[in-house]
């Protein structure tokens, strides 16, 4: 059966198209500039979200066309006559030259997760302007560059992982520090994402039912694929998505029935369910749960993101949030503490620059690339798309009335138990929402309450239901869209939880295998159980601590997550900069060097403040001291309702502060090690030995792709 290969609709552009292409890019630039102009000049009045979309898309187009091409040609010197590992090592399975459009989808599905949906929502606390600027500028000069260059370097080394490259290029100590750092960062990441799910599902029968149903649906798909119709993935996924939609509808029915009480779970119960789920998913065979869940997730991801883009453009909602709030300068925001620099960049995290992408870019993708020049579309392009998802998430959060946004995202300790207290608390922050409006907003999406539903997911879901119901179905479908969005996010996150636990397990097995051989064997069952238990135990601890934190777990842990993710990016950027310098490309080292310096400045400032700040709202140890002193004096401080709460707060702050210090130390080791290698490379009179795979001429002749040469130059 003929399989792949749709014809490429490529053609060589004739000389005269130079003018046309110049006109086209001038128009794109003008469009983007208009978008930015409207956003920047709007003062006081509400503007349409379409301007944000226009500014972002215009900037992406220009950056892709010019900056990514400059990087590909000048910095990386991609060479399409050179055979890629996919061609040289082709085995039909792990290595095979893949159509670039397919690989783009593959890579995008692998990097896109819940991070870019949650971060921008929380960052809306500072207004839409700073967030949008960072999401767009950060991806163009940081995130997409990192993804593309790591992808390229790994591809030139037959698909080596970032950890291996770190070991080979910067030495054992730095490599080990990077490995331990990645593991520790993974644990925090899983805990924070799982907490987002807990906050979204707690006390909601509808959400809990439909998300729980994803497990039997995935199991059914797994058995169907293994025994009934092996390999028929598309068919199985279509059935799965159908069942998923039924599960969402079913949730509405359950909520109104007498069964509802069985699905109203407390946050603590949900924590134990998630930890149990993570463990089971990590030890079960992949075909049963992990693989089918992955397929479901992929289809839901691509579908929902396309739907969201369509919704934003058609509904063209007005942004109700201010462009820049006072919290940006005074750092006293209720959602996360600290001022714009560095905490905005920490909070947005994955949508602009994500260290975790470096792990994916040095995983499967480099083994599948057909031609070297395609790292542009796959590495840079996928990350631009991810950034666009972040922009849409920011829009969804800014469509809400600010009063509702703060009533949903402030810590419970501030809001109090009822809609009346929440209304008063929001008023204290300088925004207005009446108790009746809060009740009506919850009723519209058929939830018990929206007060204190922090974590980002419920806010995004309300925003999405607002946008979607404006296009499809009107107010009657609001509750459906809300729960659709919750399900979509929970699905994403649970996929990350089971994949992440498994990844963590492999890392731990790898590390412990050095000490005691049997535990390193990936087929030895007790080894799998022990390491899986350790991994879920570790993230489960942080999850439980976060969920029971009297001061609001998201507020305490999200900065830790953001800093962790950005520190991982610092590791990736440091390794790539070192590798560029070792390859004798000092003059281009700024391409990764500048984002590295920025990222180090952001993360170390944030980390420093989190450890040493005297302000108890920001510094972990300052807060610890304040509460410890109060315990000695026998007093209760705000947030705590009894002495146990006080002790919990002291313990959590101690743990968080110590973890923070360990992260910074590990990354510092990597940075110092990288710097030493760079100095050695610069001092050496002859170039250091390369670790690239030797040149082999490519035999693949692509039907002429649209050539860039005929377009306007990069100006370099």
């Amino acid at each position, binding site marked *: 059966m003929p399989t792949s290969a749709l014809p490429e609709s490529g053609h060589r552009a004739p000389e005269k198209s130079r003018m046309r292409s110049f006109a086209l890019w001038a128009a794109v630039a003008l469009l983007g500039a208009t978008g930015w102009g409207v956003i920047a000049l709007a003062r006081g009045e509400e503007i349409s979200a379409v301007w944000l979309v226009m500014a972002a898309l215009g900037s992406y187009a220009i950056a892709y066309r010019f900056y990514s091409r400059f990087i590909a040609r000048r910095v990386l010197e991609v060479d399409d006559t050179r055979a890629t590992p996919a061609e040289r090592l082709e085995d039909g399975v792990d290595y095979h030259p893949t159509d670039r459009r397919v690989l783009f989808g593959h890579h995008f599905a692998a990097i896109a997760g819940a991070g870019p949906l949650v971060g921008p929502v929380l960052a809306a606390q500072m207004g839409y302007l700073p967030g949008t600027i960072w999401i767009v500028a950060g991806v163009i000069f940081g995130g997409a560059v990192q993804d593309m260059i790591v992808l390229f370097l790994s591809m030139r080394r037959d698909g080596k992982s970032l950890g291996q490259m770190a070991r080979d290029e910067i030495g054992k100590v730095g490599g080990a520090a990077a490995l331990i750092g990645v593991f520790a960062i993974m644990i925090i990441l899983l805990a924070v994402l799982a907490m987002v799910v807990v906050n979204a599902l707690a006390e909601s029968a509808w959400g809990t039912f439909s998300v729980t149903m994803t497990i039997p649906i995935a199991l059914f798909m797994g058995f169907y694929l293994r025994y009934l119709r092996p*390999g028929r993935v598309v068919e199985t996924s279509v059935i799965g998505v159908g069942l998923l939609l039924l599960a969402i509808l079913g949730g509405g029915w359950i909520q109104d029935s007498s069964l509802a009480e069985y699905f109203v779970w407390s946050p603590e119960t949900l924590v134990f369910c998630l930890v149990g789920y993570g463990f089971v998913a990590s030890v079960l065979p992949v075909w049963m749960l992990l693989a089918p869940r992955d397929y479901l997730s992929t289809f839901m991801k691509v579908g929902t993101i396309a739907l969201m883009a369509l919704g934003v453009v058609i509904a063209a909602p007005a942004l109700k949030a201010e462009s820049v709030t006072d919290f940006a300068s005074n750092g006293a925001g209720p959602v996360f503490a600290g001022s714009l620099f560095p905490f905005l960049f920490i909070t947005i995290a994955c949508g602009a620059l*994500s260290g975790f992408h470096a792990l994916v870019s040095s995983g499967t993708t480099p083994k599948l690339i057909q031609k070297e020049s395609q790292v542009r579309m796959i590495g840079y392009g996928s990350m631009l798309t991810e950034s666009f998802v972040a922009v849409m998430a920011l829009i969804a959060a800014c469509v809400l009335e600010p009063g509702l946004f703060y009533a949903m995202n402030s810590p419970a300790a501030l809001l109090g138990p009822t809609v009346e207290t929440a209304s008063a608390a929001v008023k204290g922050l300088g925004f207005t929402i009446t108790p009746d409006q809060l009740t009506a907003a919850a009723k519209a999406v058929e939830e018990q309450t929206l007060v204190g539903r922090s974590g980002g997911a419920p806010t995004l879901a309300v925003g999405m239901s607002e946008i979607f119901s404006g296009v499809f179905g009107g107010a009657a479908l609001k509750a459906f869209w809300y729960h659709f969005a919750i399900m979509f996010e929970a699905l994403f996150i649970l996929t990350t939880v089971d994949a992440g636990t498994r990844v963590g397990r492999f890392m731990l097995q790898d590390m412990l295998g050095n000490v005691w051989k049997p535990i390193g064997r990936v087929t030895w069952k007790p080894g799998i159980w022990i390491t899986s238990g350790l991994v879920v135990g570790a993230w489960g601890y942080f999850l439980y601590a976060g969920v029971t934190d009297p001061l609001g777990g998201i507020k305490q842990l999200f900065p830790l997550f953001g800093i962790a993710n950005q520190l991982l990016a610092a590791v990736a950027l440091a390794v790539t900069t070192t590798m560029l310098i070792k390859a004798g490309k000092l003059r281009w080292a700024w391409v990764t060097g500048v984002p590295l310096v920025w990222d180090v400045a952001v993360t170390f400032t944030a980390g420093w403040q989190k450890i040493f700040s005297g302000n108890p709202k920001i510094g972990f140890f300052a807060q610890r001291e304040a509460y410890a002193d109060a315990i000695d004096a026998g007093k209760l401080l705000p947030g705590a309702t009894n002495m146990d709460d006080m002790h919990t707060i002291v313990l959590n702050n101690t743990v968080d502060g110590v973890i923070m210090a360990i992260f910074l130390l590990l990354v510092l080791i990597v940075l110092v090690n990288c710097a030493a290698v760079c100095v050695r490379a610069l001092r050496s009179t002859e170039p250091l030995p390369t670790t690239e795979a030797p040149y082999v001429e490519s035999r693949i002749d692509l039907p002429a792709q649209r050539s860039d040469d005929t377009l306007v130059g990069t100006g370099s």
Partner: protein
Amino acid sequence: MSAVRKVLDTMLWYARELVGETEYDRYCERHRRHHPKAPVPTRREFHRIRTLQRECEAPGRCC
């Protein structure tokens, strides 16, 4: 009508490629090229072997 068919075909092609459904066809084609005499594994057998391999590799997913 044919335009609609074409779009649907493209979408199906993309979806099948994206989730790796075409992996088996590709494998068979390659197998026949390299070992023309040896029997090709059935779809069922192929996927058993593949999932067994997936058991030993870390999944590449992200936040």
